[in-house]
């Protein structure tokens, strides 16, 4: 028996020693993501894990400052409108891909054609849906052609990762990405990690961090454990409660807006007074403070953040006024009636908690709230059910284009995938804005739409959630409004 004991001890010691050498820190950093990329082809999927990695391997034609302003990247300057549906893009010179292929107008044209090809069936097509064609007009200049006036084409080009024409035809391209970006791909151990190393020939300012390892961990608790154990330098989606427990944290107003879609056509919520009451009843500040520890802003009566195009700074959030809510509900004569609130659990940060908290506020306003939390698939059935709209559906809208169009088409516009109103005026405003190339006029249309929806209280606008990142003590990073994890903007002390 003694022999066994000693053997075991030896085994344990050996493993511990091995372990010690195994994860000793290299010079680079480790970033823990919530999900693993399913591919490293930058154009096929709409996938957070893939984007987090490829944002560092590839460059886009345009980019944004950390605050969200558009600026040229591979383009030498901002695109120019040639005629109503043609934009001219001029590229920087002297840039090459990691494998030596030159970056020129042909590469960009190729990339555009690749992503809009119906055969290619890209999930990113919604970003480029207006683009019909592109053609090179010189070595470094090209024209992008749209199916009509498209005011947000520059925003779309901010999504266009440029791929090398030759290498991207390689069947192994999805596992061996080659871009022009500040980091080169090294290895992908599926299920475990992806390694990148600094591109020493990068055309822009040289990044400080020499290498990055991405790990994929779905459980937020496990990610946090890794950060606290010193294994990770950056984790995403840190829970607000933990900002004081991790070495460092960064919070940036993010892209996510939890709202409740109210049924304006039927049920107790058909009455605008009730819809307003439901807005007044909710103490949004308390939700921000209580549930999110202050890491969320009260949404200002619209499905937009201040950094988004179309944001109307004249519209302010409904105040928290429980008495007014009660009064309105009594006026409408629906006191004590049942209102159904639909939500899901585990899909978005604190989704269930928000729903239950809101239900609690509504109850206090004098309604009988029936909360129904569905498993995600079933929840989607309700969200997309065009025939019978539930009284209230909780949803979290996420808008990566930073432009009103996407969210408004989906939730504001009558007939949109998640909209619960049949307001033709509102729909008209949104449609008009869609093809208006004059920025001022377009912005004005959105301002009107925001105001209209606000007055009608088609939604209960809750919060604008901040993205919180947990950082190791040695990592410096200010964060970005567009939630991109650009390693070149990070520094290790």
């Amino acid at each position: 028996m003694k022999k066994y004991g000693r053997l075991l001890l030896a085994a344990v010691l050996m493993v511990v020693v091995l372990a010690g050498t195994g994860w000793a820190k290299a010079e680079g950093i480790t970033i823990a993501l919530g999900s693993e990329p399913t591919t490293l082809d930058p154009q096929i999927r709409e996938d957070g894990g893939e984007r987090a990695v490829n944002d560092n391997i590839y460059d886009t034609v345009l980019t944004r400052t950390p605050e969200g302003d558009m600026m040229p990247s591979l383009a030498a300057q901002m695109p120019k409108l040639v005629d109503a549906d043609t934009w001219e893009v001029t590229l920087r010179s002297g840039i090459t891909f990691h494998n030596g292929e030159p970056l020129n107008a042909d590469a960009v044209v190729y990339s555009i054609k690749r992503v809009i090809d119906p055969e290619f069936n890209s999930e990113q097509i919604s970003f480029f849906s207006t683009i019909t064609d592109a053609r090179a007009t010189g070595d470094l200049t090209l024209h992008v052609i749209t199916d009509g006036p498209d005011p947000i084409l520059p925003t779309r080009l901010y999504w266009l990762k440029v791929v090398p024409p030759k290498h991207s035809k390689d069947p192994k391209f999805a596992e061996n990405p080659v871009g022009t970006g500040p980091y080169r791909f090294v290895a992908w151990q599926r299920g475990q990690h992806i390694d990148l190393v600094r591109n020493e020939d990068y055309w822009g300012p040289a990044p400080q961090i020499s290498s990055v390892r991405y790990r994929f961990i779905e459980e937020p608790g496990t990610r946090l454990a890794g950060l606290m154990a010193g294994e990770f330098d950056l984790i995403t989606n840190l829970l607000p409660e933990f900002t004081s427990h991790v070495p460092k944290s960064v919070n940036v107003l993010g892209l996510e807006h939890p709202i409740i879609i109210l049924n304006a056509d039927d049920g107790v919520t058909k009455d605008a007074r009730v819809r307003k009451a439901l807005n007044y009843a909710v103490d949004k500040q308390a939700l921000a403070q209580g549930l999110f520890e202050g890491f969320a802003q009260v949404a200002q009566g619209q499905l937009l953040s201040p950094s988004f195009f179309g944001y109307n700074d004249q519209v302010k959030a409904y105040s928290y006024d429980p008495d007014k809510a009660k009064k309105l509900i009594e006026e409408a004569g629906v006191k004590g009636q049942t209102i159904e609130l639909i939500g899901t659990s585990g899909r978005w940060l604190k989704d269930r908690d928000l729903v239950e908290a809101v239900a609690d506020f509504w109850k206090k306003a004098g309604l009988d709230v029936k909360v129904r939390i569905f498993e995600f698939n079933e929840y989607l059935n309700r969200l997309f059910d065009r025939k019978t709209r539930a009284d209230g559906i909780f949803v979290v809208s996420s808008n990566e284009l930073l432009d009103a169009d996407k969210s408004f088409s989906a939730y504001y516009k009558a007939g949109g995938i998640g909209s619960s109103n049949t307001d033709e005026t509102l729909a008209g405003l949104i449609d008009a804005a869609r093809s208006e190339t004059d920025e001022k006029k377009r912005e004005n249309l959105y301002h009107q739409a925001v105001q209209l929806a606000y007055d009608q209280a088609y939604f209960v606008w809750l919060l604008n959630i901040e993205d919180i990142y947990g950082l190791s003590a040695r990592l410096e990073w200010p964060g970005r409004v567009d939630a991109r994890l650009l390693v070149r903007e990070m520094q290790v002390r």
Partner: protein
Amino acid sequence: MSQTNADSLEQALEQHRHEWVEKLFELGRELKRDKAGLVGVMLITALVLMAVFAPYIAPHDPTDQDLTARLAPPVWYEKGTLKHILGTDHLGRDVLSRTIHGARVSLWVGAAVVLLAGGFGVVMGLMAGYLGGRTDAFVMRWVDTQVAFPGLLLALIILAVIGPSLTTVVVVLALNGWMVYGRMTRSAVLSIRQSPYVEAAEVVGCRWPRVIFRHILPNLTSPLLTLGILEFARIVLAEAALSFLGLGIQPPATSWGLDVAMGKNYMFMAWWLVTIPGCAIAVTVLAINLVASWLRLISDPQEREKQFARHMAGAMRKKMHATIKKELEAP
């Protein structure tokens, strides 16, 4: 005449009652001897009482939120309050109340699954063992096939598809676990059928349901009871695991496994959120296991004898060591 008949009946009943009391006393005496069993029985009793009277015992409604008192620590911390003796969770719900109510779900699921699976398994086993022939072949082939299924995976998928809830969890776990009862019942029936008294009953012309219920089932009680209790422990763990994975009990219902899953995100700042429901599961299962091993002991005379011998051996060794020590010290 009828008077005497009634008297004798009365007497018989009295006798019967007496036997019952006697049996209970005997059990009590057995328990006194087996400390672990005693602890187990006491814990289970406490748990059952707690589950039954949960609404009266629990200081708060387990679903009552209080966003202003989130993640309050237990009372012995500086920031803890008597209002929430074991602290609160991330929504300000009282951990103690949730734990008390959680016992309901665990015990209810355990009992329901054992009864369902046990009932079905026993019926199938009886049919297979008693009817034999094709029925037997069919049932046993079914059992063999289902035993070779990747049970948990199927359970997860079915739960995900039809939507997890208390009922579906019970049904899925029961569907997954009836085979063991079936097998045991069948083999017991086969061996009991050979015994003279069942043969006699058959010769006399008892019909098979009667034979089964009067002669065979009573002999199965003791092994079935032990198996049922062991399965109970397994089911409590399984429910907790399913709920932990998010495919078991769904909020706003409470379950220990669910509470661990929700508390896990906060485990570094609020250890009590994982620890308390986790301990509740462990203690419950441990208590059930203790009772099961005690039951197995007292229901098996051979095992009892062995146990006694072990006990004596232990005592004797002690005595021997004492004598040797004395002898060594003597001169």
